[in-house]
């Protein structure tokens, strides 16, 4: 295998692996901060125990997000040095700003939060978790600003054979970021919501710590429902933006080889082995127009058309992504998304009826729903990144131009095998710890005279009541 394939494989594996941990960090940091704020405001021990229980799971996950993130920052220079030279003038800035604004904030205050329980006042301690939550989410913002430049380069000019920044604010306020950041932010909250729903369901089913897990379930159902709905609405506008900014990605996602007017939506398309045409397809007429333009009549350009246009503009070459990846990623992502909406609204409905801990059949299902956001997160990035093929920066730098030309295939193979070994071992350890602490439940209540009612207090003040 040549160095380019290996470098791409390594980037894909390390990025997906990294993003396995990031969304939970983004969302759960906010939710743990919310729980601790409830504790500060009400002084009720149950919120403290909630904070500590979910906080411990947060920490296990956070550590993995941090260490796998270091690889990402270094990898641009190590494996994509020609890319780094060509766009470093623009791309380096958001990365440096991310480190300065976000990494310091989250790491420093997380250290204080972990070790500061008996050294700080309650309010200040809760504030440190808010600093972690803000830091993590700012970090996502800046890395997505950097990624947006790759999706939709703006604010630059070509001088002396490389791209230079001409307007920092144009780079920061890239049109793409307004679709991408809310999508990732809400995915984080949905991931955290479903994570809490599943673990709470596990304990409610076994009638352990009912009070604590009822409250957790309530909070999580609310957050997951809101986030899932926003994700779908936002995803819809994101796709409408994509058809303007990257028509090829849309064509590949819809397995649309030939330009179609009005365009149909594919329910199921099987392509031939080389990916150059379809063998079998079930399509709903006009639906793609409705999705893409909110109307029944439109023209959506197919891959063959776009390939010809790109060849005319950029010379001969393969400008068509392998449609099987964007096509199935999109369907898995959207499918998980709709399931998440349905399930979280059902969870919310149960919460409102105050009867969710008696519905053991529902709880049995909810135990497993945590897998959905993970599937959606991974496939979402596959769609976003593979759909940009063959461009590292859209219409500006191709994969071949961007890869390090002095790093041998042997070196990349060595590091790739190294990452696979380390990451495989670590995922085993992480899942082991997450399962162990999830199943163990919270630490026993510290106050002997205040047993948190396990009888499911019907008059329990809900989260709204906790605000006073």
């Amino acid at each position, binding site marked *: 295998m040549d160095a380019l394939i290996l470098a791409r494989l390594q980037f894909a594996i390390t990025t997906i692996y990294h993003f396995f941990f990031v969304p939970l960090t983004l969302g759960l940091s906010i939710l743990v901060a919310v729980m601790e704020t409830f504790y500060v405001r009400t002084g009720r021990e149950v919120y403290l125990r909630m904070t500590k229980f979910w906080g411990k799971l947060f920490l296990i996950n956070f550590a993995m997000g941090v260490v796998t993130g270091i690889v990402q920052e270094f990898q641009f220079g190590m494996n994509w040095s020609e890319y780094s030279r060509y766009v470093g003038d623009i791309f380096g800035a958001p990365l440096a*700003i991310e480190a300065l604004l976000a990494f310091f904030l989250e790491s420093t205050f997380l250290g204080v939060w972990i070790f500061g329980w008996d050294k700080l006042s309650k309010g200040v301690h809760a504030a440190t978790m808010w600093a972690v939550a803000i830091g993590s989410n700012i970090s996502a913002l800046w890395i997505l600003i950097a990624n947006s430049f790759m999706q939709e380069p703006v604010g630059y000019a070509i001088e002396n054979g490389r791209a230079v920044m001409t307007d920092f604010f144009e780079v920061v306020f890239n049109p793409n970021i307004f679709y991408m950041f809310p999508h990732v932010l809400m995915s984080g909250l949905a991931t955290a919501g479903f994570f809490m729903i599943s673990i709470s369901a596990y304990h409610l089913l076994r009638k352990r710590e009912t009070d604590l897990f009822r409250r957790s379930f309530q909070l999580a159902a609310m957050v997951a429902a809101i986030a899932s709905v926003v994700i779908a609405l936002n995803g819809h506008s994101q796709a409408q933006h994509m058809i303007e900014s990257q028509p090829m990605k849309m064509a590949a996602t819809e397995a649309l080889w030939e330009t179609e007017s009005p365009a149909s939506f594919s329910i199921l398309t099987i392509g031939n082995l080389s990916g150059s045409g379809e063998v079998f397809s079930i399509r709903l007429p006009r639906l793609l127009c409705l999705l893409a333009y909110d109307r029944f009549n439109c023209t959506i350009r197919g891959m063959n058309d776009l390939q010809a246009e790109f060849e005319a503009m950029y010379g001969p070459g393969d400008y068509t992504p392998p449609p099987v990846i964007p096509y199935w990623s999109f369907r898995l992502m959207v499918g998980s998304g709709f399931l998440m909406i349905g399930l979280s609204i059902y969870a919310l409905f149960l919460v409102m009826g105050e009867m969710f801990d008696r519905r053991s059949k529902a709880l049995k299902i909810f135990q497993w729903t945590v897998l959905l956001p993970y599937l959606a997160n991974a496939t979402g990035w596959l769609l976003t990144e593979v759909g940009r093929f063959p461009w590292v920066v859209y219409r500006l730098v191709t994969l071949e131009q961007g890869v390090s030309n002095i790093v041998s295939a042997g070196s990349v193979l060595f590091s790739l095998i190294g990452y696979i070994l380390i990451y495989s071992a670590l995922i085993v350890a992480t899942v082991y*710890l997450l399962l162990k602490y999830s199943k163990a439940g919270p630490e026993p209540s510290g106050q002997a005279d205040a047993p948190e009612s396990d009888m499911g207090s019907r008059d329990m003040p809900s989260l709204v009541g906790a605000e006073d």
Partner: protein
Amino acid sequence: MDLNTVWFILIAVLYIGFFVLEGFDLGVGMLLPFIGRNDTNRRVVINTIGPHWDGNEVWLLTAGGATFAAFPMWYATMFSGFYLALFLLLAALILRGVAFEFRSKDENPKWRAFWDWSIFAGSLLTALLLGVAFANLVRGVPIDADMNYVGGFFNLLNPYALLGGIATIAIFLLHGAIFLSMKASGEVENRARYAAKKLWLPVVAIMLALLIATYLATDILERLGVDPFLIQLTFDAATMIVGCFLRRDRYGWAFAMTSVAIAFAVVTMFQIMYPRVMISSLNPDWSLTIYNASSSPYTLQVMTIVALIFVPIVLAYQGWSYWVFRKRVEGKPEKLTY
């Protein structure tokens, strides 16, 4: 002073922050198996750096990000050129970082032993590789006319670079032992004090050897003449004075002195390099400098404004975090977090 020089200095400052801060937590990590002889002691050792190691490591990430933003050619040449060395560094940082968070989350002695050795090995490898990398930066490496590193992995393992690696391990060990003497209590404190006193003289000898080797292996003399003398003197004096403070059991002062020594060692390295950032051993004209490796003036301006606003804020809250944990770590198991 032009912005290119400002950014060269700023990156030097970031590395000073990194080596002084992460230096002690790497040292503590390397001392872990020797000073922590039972589980409680090991937990005390780890808890002294627990609140800080992650924040300290961010100095390296920020230095990397700043290099990318201000000198993309430097970032591209160094990171692709030192590929395998950096991969090993990343592997070490990954294992070490996860180990801090994971080791106390299970009672199994084998589990704990594995992560404790990960902390030790990860810290040792990190210190070694950083020393080797920086020694190569000041010594010069084969770089061709296209700004590409053309040596292999084993080119990096020359005697001078290995001495740089050993010296980095040595000074971090001393720095870490002094930090432990300040922050631990009981048995751990006593053993750390003993270690610091025993380590001091060998460290001075290694530093002296590095200094001599630097005059032989780099172009420090012809480029700077006696100019770096004051800085060198401060560096040596600081390393020497550490011994006086250790004899009087003044660990705060001793720590200040190892910090000064490390800071001035970094200053010396950057002084040798300036205005080059990657020295070509093949042809002086092929070296990367702060001018031919830099970003556009506009990007440098933007980044300068960002840095002027946020570096002081970072310093303020990180300083505050050290103030919060100014007290010694006690050896009561129920009070230990990690």
